[in-house]
């Protein structure tokens, strides 16, 4: 099996996914959660499935321009989402309106309220960007120190590829971008690099043993030697996050789905992206060196 030789196919697939993601992001944008846009989200347990129209009529006096969604296993809960932030006094009144309408117990109906000012979103975004950059630089230093900078740069390229693909996943599947988004992205950063390093470790080992072999072949052999491990680890990880996704509650699902996609992307990039980049670069470098030594 010649994986590295077909690098044009793999690079093409990745570029296509990233491009689709970028187009969606540029046209319809990401589905930002209220912690990014600012606004209020109230989750209330009504003890029954109430039609959206009915819920709207309960809160129509407040002029909220709200989006209503059902939640919970039996759809007994409603989530009221608004772009504007609702003051505490107003929240008490809204809750009281539901308590009265559906004859609820004041202390138990309340599931959650999330409220964010508009300034927080920018901050979270900046922090995420900063964190990814900081992590990349730190890991690049470590890999350069333990291996060589060609490995380091290839690994970090694969990593940024994963982040971009993951962004595309968020755009395509309309996953809400909220504060756990950073955790998801950074977890994937950690997972993906782990995977890549295992392959690179084998490349380094094979380089010592077979000095005459072309780089493309060394890379390909190393991938084939480690592919069972890559797939098995991804499988066990997917199995556990999968059970979290299929059994978990809303908040965990929003976190588990990107993690699942991230594990798949991370495995993909460590096999199909990182090593081909390394091999291409090394081949090119060698040609340049030969060219100059002849001259």
């Amino acid at each position, binding site marked *: 099996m010649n994986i590295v030789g077909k690098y044009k196919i793999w690079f093409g697939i990745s570029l296509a996914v990233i491009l689709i993601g970028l187009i969606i992001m540029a046209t319809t944008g990401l589905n930002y959660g209220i912690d990014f846009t600012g606004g209020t989200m109230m989750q209330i347990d009504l003890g029954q499935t109430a039609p959206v129209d009915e819920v709207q009529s309960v809160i129509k006096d407040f002029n909220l321009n709200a989006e209503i969604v059902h939640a919970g296993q039996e759809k007994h809960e409603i989530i009221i989402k608004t772009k504007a932030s609702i003051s505490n006094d107003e929240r008490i009144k809204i809750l009281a309106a539901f308590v009265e309408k559906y004859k609820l117990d004041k202390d138990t109906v309340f599931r959650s309220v999330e409220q964010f000012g508009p300034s927080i979103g920018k901050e979270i975004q900046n922090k995420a960007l900063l964190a990814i950059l900081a992590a990349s630089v730190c890991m690049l230093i470590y890999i350069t120190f333990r291996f060589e900078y060609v490995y380091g740069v290839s690994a970090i390229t694969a990593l940024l590829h994963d982040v971009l693909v993951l962004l595309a996943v968020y755009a395509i599947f309309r996953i809400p971008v909220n504060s756990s988004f950073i955790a998801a992205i950074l977890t994937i950063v950690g997972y993906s690099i*782990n995977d890549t390093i295992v392959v690179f470790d084998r490349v380094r080992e094979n380089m010592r043993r077979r000095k005459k072999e072309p780089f493309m072949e060394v890379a390909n052999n190393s991938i084939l030697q480690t592919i069972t491990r890559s797939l*098995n680890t991804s499988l*066990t*990880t*997917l199995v*556990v996050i999968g059970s979290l996704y299929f059994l978990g*509650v809303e908040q*965990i699902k929003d976190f588990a789905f990107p993690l699942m996609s991230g594990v798949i992307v991370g495995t993909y990039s460590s096999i199909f992206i990182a090593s081909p980049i390394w091999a291409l670069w090394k081949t090119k470098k060698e040609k340049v060196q030969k060219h100059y030594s002849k001259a």
Partner: protein
Amino acid sequence: MKKNGVAVFLVIVLLICGVSYLALNGVGSGTFGVKSIADSMKLGLDIEGGVVVVYEAKTDATGSDLLQLMNQTKNVIVRRVNSMGLTEPNITIQGDKRIRIELPGVKNANDAISMIGKTAQLEFVLVDQKSVARSGMTKDAFVGTQILTGQEVKDSKLSFDKYNKPGVGLEFNTEGTKLFRTATESAVAYPGGKGQIAIILDDNVISAPYTSIVIGDGKAVITGNFTVEEATNLASLIRGGALPVNLDEVQTSVIGPTLGLDALKTSVNAAKIGLLLVVLFMLVFYRVPGFIASIALVLYAGVLLFIMVGFNATLTLPGVAGIVLSLGMAVDANVIIFERIKEELRNGKTLRASIDSGFSRALRTIIDSNVTTFIAAIVLFTFGEGPIKGFAVTLMIGIVTSMFTAVVVTKTLLKSSLSFKGFNSNKMYGVRGGN
């Protein structure tokens, strides 16, 4: 040699059973026992339920002025929150201008938020003859009549008494001067020639001095065991009558008490099923070593939870996701090792030699890959806030623990298992032929 192996194997397995039992049930009672994980784990707000409010101060102050202002604001809020009688409130200054208030277990969130934002109430109360007030008491713990409130205070500043002890000097307005004189007259008329005047802030007695003279100049000094800083803060608090700055609510999260627990319950169930599937996978794919890896995985889960309790880490929902994720990744080191062993076996080495060289060759890979992930976790911890920090901590503990269980424990178990009859064939390692 053979007997030794069997003994080692059994001892380790017994130990692991012990750890799991402890984690699930705990042992003993009172202060000398070990509590079960479920009882001793500190739950985060997103699980336990409660309120998180982040306020931003509206001020142009910078540098040390801002710092002082924020500290004063924090002190006011701390006092108010304490007066609500909540358990373990957590109030921190975030960045330069923000204050984060976490109130776990608050049922009536909206009332709590209103309480934090209200104005400070200063009162002077003439304590009844048959009653005694002490600082720290609440207003209803003694009997007395209100003399005046913060509205009658014209100014308040740091002052020192004749022993050079810091206190808060107060100056009343005309109305206040009159009221205070009348009150001190009544106090002096008490048997013994002195009566007690309690100074109350936000329903809490902050000082309750006795007076034996009539004060008619409209000035009073609150003394107590103050440091200079405390007295300064108190003075500014009374002067402002409220928070020293206006606060904007920039983030509020209220989590109902049942929502988080539901999430925890389903997540724990998911974790159990995930763990079972991983064990099955390892058994099918790696047979004997897979079985041993599964034992190590159970140990990993137990040790991870104990370390979290030991570090007093707070379990949050992303933290739960982190634990579950790490369960899947914990076998990674074993997978790397077992794949290596298989390779060595295919190259015709004996089982014992394959295990040895498989471990030593895999170790470098495992260290390199885990260190890079650990770096990511450190960055996550540095830049993250709240729940994300919790997630990073779980990730770090998970990496270190899994390195130990996957490398040290599996190696010992694997080598001692060679003493068991039938465990030491290539077939049991998922490799055809050989021996």
